[in-house]
């Protein structure tokens, strides 16, 4: 293991697991990403090295434009790095084709967005069912899973509602249900509370903590807000496309 990797390793705030750590869920090594804008090449991320263990709940903080979303997108397999290694669950996802990546995302990553990104023409039930359409599950199995998941997020009585008939907090809970319905190992959330009032935000954060502790989901959450970051077990700071400082306990 190289030096910078050790430096930025994210340790959980809660007591370490009894057994020794297995391979990290996310291994990032010397990752770089730039965007081409016209003639110009804009470097966004440079030389990122980072490990995230299975079961971590990591907050990604930093000023606007520091590359948080870009990093999250790379880890979640919806964008490709220019160079560097990126292994998730032992698989080097940079080598996958577009359609292999799509399949990989469908079964390995759950997505939560700032603006929920629900399909406006689908009901809460149908939105949650959406990812299951890509699996071979039968209708009744899907129904069972969707109903169960919606009741876990407290929306059993809103299944037939369309997104525009739900509050922001409720919509985000639908989105959380959609993110976990396929039982992915990794959940990525880009400012999941950014569009919510304080109490709805608290609900959502509490729910994400439960996903982490009760279901053992590994979560990476981008946030602007220190308060929100406190829900995580660890915080990583990004600035100008680089990870700055050491691991910082979230409770600090």
């Amino acid at each position, binding site marked *: 293991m190289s030096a910078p990797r050790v430096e930025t390793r994210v340790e959980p705030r809660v007591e370490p697991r009894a057994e020794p750590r297995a391979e990290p869920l996310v291994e990032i090594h010397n990752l770089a990403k730039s965007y081409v804008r016209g003639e110009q090449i804009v470097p966004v991320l440079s030389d990122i090295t980072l490990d995230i263990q299975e079961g971590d709940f990591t907050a990604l903080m930093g000023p606007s434009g520091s590359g948080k979303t870009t990093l999250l*997108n790379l880890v979640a397999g*919806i*964008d490709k790095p220019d160079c560097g290694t990126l292994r998730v669950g032992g698989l080097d996802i940079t080598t996958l084709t577009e359609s292999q990546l799509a399949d990989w*995302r469908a079964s390995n990553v759950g997505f939560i967005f700032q603006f929920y*990104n629900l399909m406006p023409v689908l009901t809460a039930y149908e939105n949650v069912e959406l990812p299951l359409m*890509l699996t071979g599950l039968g209708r009744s199995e899907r129904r069972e899973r969707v109903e169960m998941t919606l009741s876990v997020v407290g929306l059993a009585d809103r299944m037939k509602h369309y997104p525009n008939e739900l509050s922001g907090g409720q919509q985000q809970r639908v989105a959380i249900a959609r993110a976990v319905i396929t039982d992915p190992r990794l959940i990525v959330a880009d400012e999941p509370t950014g569009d919510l009032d304080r109490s709805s935000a608290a609900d959502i954060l509490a729910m994400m903590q439960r996903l982490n502790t009760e279901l053992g989901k590994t979560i990476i959450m981008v946030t602007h807000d220190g308060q929100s970051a406190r829900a995580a077990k660890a915080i990583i700071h990004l600035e100008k496309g680089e990870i700055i400082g050491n691991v910082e306990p979230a409770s600090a």
Partner: protein
Amino acid sequence: MFLLTLVCRNAFRHRLRTLLTVSGLAIAVLAYGLLQTVVDAWYAGAAAASSTRLVTRSSISLTFFLPVSYENRIRSVEGVKHVARSNWFGGIYQEPKNFFPQFAVSDNYLNLYPEFILPEDQRIAYVRDRKGCLVGRQLADQFGFKVGDVLPLRGAVYPGRWEFVIRGIFDGSDSTKFTKQMLFHWDYLNETLRRTTPRRADGVGIFVVGIDNPDNAAAASVNIDQVFRNSLAETLTETEQAFQLGFVAMSDQIIAAIQIVSYVVILIIMAVMANTMAMSARERTAEYATLKTLGFGPAFIALLIFAESMFICALGGGVGMLLTSPAAAGFKQAAGGIFPIFAVSRETITMQLACAAAVGIAAAVVPAIRAARVRIVDGLRAIT
């Protein structure tokens, strides 16, 4: 199933936009169908004409008369069996919008038209009555004429008030035969003219010439015209079909224009539809990116857009096609007797279907490709 749900709901997201587009499509497909039917009807009139009948008219123009004395000279041409006289009367029944053709014809006229079937007793009654007339079944049905009724006409070409007594009603041998017309004695017209305006008497508008064999049509035509070459009133003889097409030819440019317009209408709606689809797809950029994020492939996104476009076109096209036949019936009524045969053909319906499908496909191509290609990260940024 799930795809269909998504497509239908997407299609009706902007009710007004979709409603307007569907109406536009329906109107375009309907207009296309009607215009094509007009073109068909135009040619159908000529196609129904017989090629064993020739028409001899003044070579100058239809409005010039030929001397009645030509009749015997035409009859003496080889291959000619019958010669009948026919003058366009152009009278008005009650008011101009009640238009139907009237012809003053010689008594042997119906011998040349076996497709008009007249009971023998009525034929005899007609021949006996100098002021008698015959009406076709379609005409009788339209105005409720019965045998024995008096049919008054206000002359337009031949001034004055004319009264005829309906002595017979003839049927077409099948439904495509045009029987919305009225025939009366050429002799009656001519006698009246001799009394009132002698200089207009003894003129014949056209001679309808029956020949023994359609193969001789060309030769007979040439021979007839040869007889009158270098005379005061030279003739032009052609098959009845060519004569009818001559009417059409006058309007050839109009027909071409109608045909072009019918396709222009489809092109316009194609542009409108493409715009609608482009707008819809652009508004949903973030949704398509979200679907891709969840693992749906570009092909699925393209299919969504294609299916939606086809769905809207099927709705609009379907409504337009359903309306075409009733509209054609109404159009036929409104057009009076101009189009004896006015029926929406199977080809027209097939073409309407093809046009609607073409619009659906053409409108979806660009938005579908664009949405399928857009990178997820760019698509997701479309909302923020």
